[in-house]
């Protein structure tokens, strides 16, 4: 904690502590989302955002919503000392710079896959190995809905993958309720995601003419998030990801065949047990009006997750729907949520935005 925030803490009542923060990878999509959230957060003071390509440019040039922010990008090689360093770089960057990060920061929150998996072996299997496996045990998975108890005081926090987050949030209540025991059938997870998932530097397939209007299988099988789901749910899933025409959003439809018969009441109990007290989780399952099940556009721009379910009596299937904004609950919002828990701040601080209606394809 800096002297500044210590002083603040000592001095007066309201926003007891202020933490200085930096964002590495500030021109990127999740970096921009972090900056947006932190700029509106009562307890954070953003002192640095880095970029190699837009060094010295204003943040608002990359992120037009942040034109009001008086901050310029600086070089990632000149990191300032901060309380919390958020890193939003492509996979492989943080694992190479993690020592450096801890030299300048007390707490590191990494949004990449670099510290998500608990075992180094998994990096050999699913990625290209790991440069700093000694940090893996120290890292805590950011998603409070499954790891809240381990976050307070954590100093290395690993943000979840967005598709993994949607899936884990959808299935965890069933796992906890014991519905997915050894006799359960295959768990099929069919995911639909928006174009922001690819990050700011898209290629030909991400150009507007090619990417508009698609239902495009982009990870038919073998998606790396399977590893994360297995690690945190203890469940092997059949996982397929499709690109659809939206910018923000990840929606997971989980087709589940429980051990034995379940009723709608059982399902409500399982999901309410899991989420009734969660500040960001909503159960949306049937009912009237236009919005009867989880939809990414209902949560766009917010840190909310929506989950819902339906029962297929004919063949004992439960269909679970889960929707998040990949940029918020699926990355930057989850990271700030976890930081709030780690630092003992109110969980919803900086994450109060409730979304828009009507809203098109956010």
């Amino acid at each position, binding site marked *: 904690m800096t002297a500044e925030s210590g002083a603040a803490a000592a001095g007066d009542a309201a926003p007891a502590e202020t933490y200085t923060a930096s964002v590495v990878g500030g021109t990127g999509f999740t970096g921009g989302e972090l900056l947006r959230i932190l700029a509106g957060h009562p307890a954070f003071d953003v002192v640095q955002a880095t970029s190699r390509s837009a060094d010295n440019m204003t943040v608002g040039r990359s992120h037009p919503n942040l034109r009001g922010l008086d901050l310029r990008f600086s070089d990632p090689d000149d990191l300032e000392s901060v309380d919390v360093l958020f890193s939003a770089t492509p996979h492989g960057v943080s694992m190479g710079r993690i020592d450096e990060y801890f030299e300048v920061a007390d707490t590191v929150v990494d949004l990449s896959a670099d510290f998500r998996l608990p075992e180094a072996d998994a990096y050999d299997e699913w990625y290209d190995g790991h440069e700093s496996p000694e940090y893996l045990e120290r890292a805590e998975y950011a998603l409070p809905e499954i790891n809240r108890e381990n976050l307070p005081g954590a100093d290395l926090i690993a943000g979840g993958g967005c598709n993994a987050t949607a899936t884990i949030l959808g299935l965890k209540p069933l796992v906890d309720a014991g519905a997915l025991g050894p006799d359960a059938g295959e768990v099929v997870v069919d995911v639909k995601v928006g174009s922001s998932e690819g990050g700011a530097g898209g290629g030909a397939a991400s150009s507007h003419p090619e990417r508009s209007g698609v239902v495009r299988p982009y990870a038919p099988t073998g998606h790396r998030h399977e590893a994360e789901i297995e690690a945190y749910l203890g469940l092997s899933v059949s996982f397929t990801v499709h690109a659809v025409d939206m910018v923000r959003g990840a929606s997971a439809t989980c087709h589940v065949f429980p051990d034995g018969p379940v009723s709608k009441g059982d399902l409500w109990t399982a999901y309410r047990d899991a989420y009734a007290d969660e500040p960001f989780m909503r159960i949306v399952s*049937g009912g009237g009006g236009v919005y009867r099940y989880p939809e990414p556009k209902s949560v766009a721009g917010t840190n909310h997750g929506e989950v819902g379910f339906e029962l297929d009596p004919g063949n004992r299937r439960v269909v679970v729907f889960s929707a998040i904004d990949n940029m918020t609950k699926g990355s930057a919002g989850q990271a700030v949520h976890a930081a709030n828990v780690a630092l003992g701040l109110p969980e919803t601080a900086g994450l109060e935005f409730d979304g828009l209606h009507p809203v098109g394809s956010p």
Partner: protein
Amino acid sequence: MTSDTDTLLAEDPITGEEIELPADVEVGEIIDSPVTGTELEVISLDPVTLEEAPELEEDWGE
């Protein structure tokens, strides 16, 4: 936010939880559950009894 004098208590037919309804609900009226969002029909008033309303499949454009 709604003034609490103007509410009735009832049991959610799906979850069994106690839920609040506006005081002026009438028998036959459809109202949504604050817990599950499900549309419920008011079956009787004293005590207030609720039942899942039949779903209007077709109004949703299949």
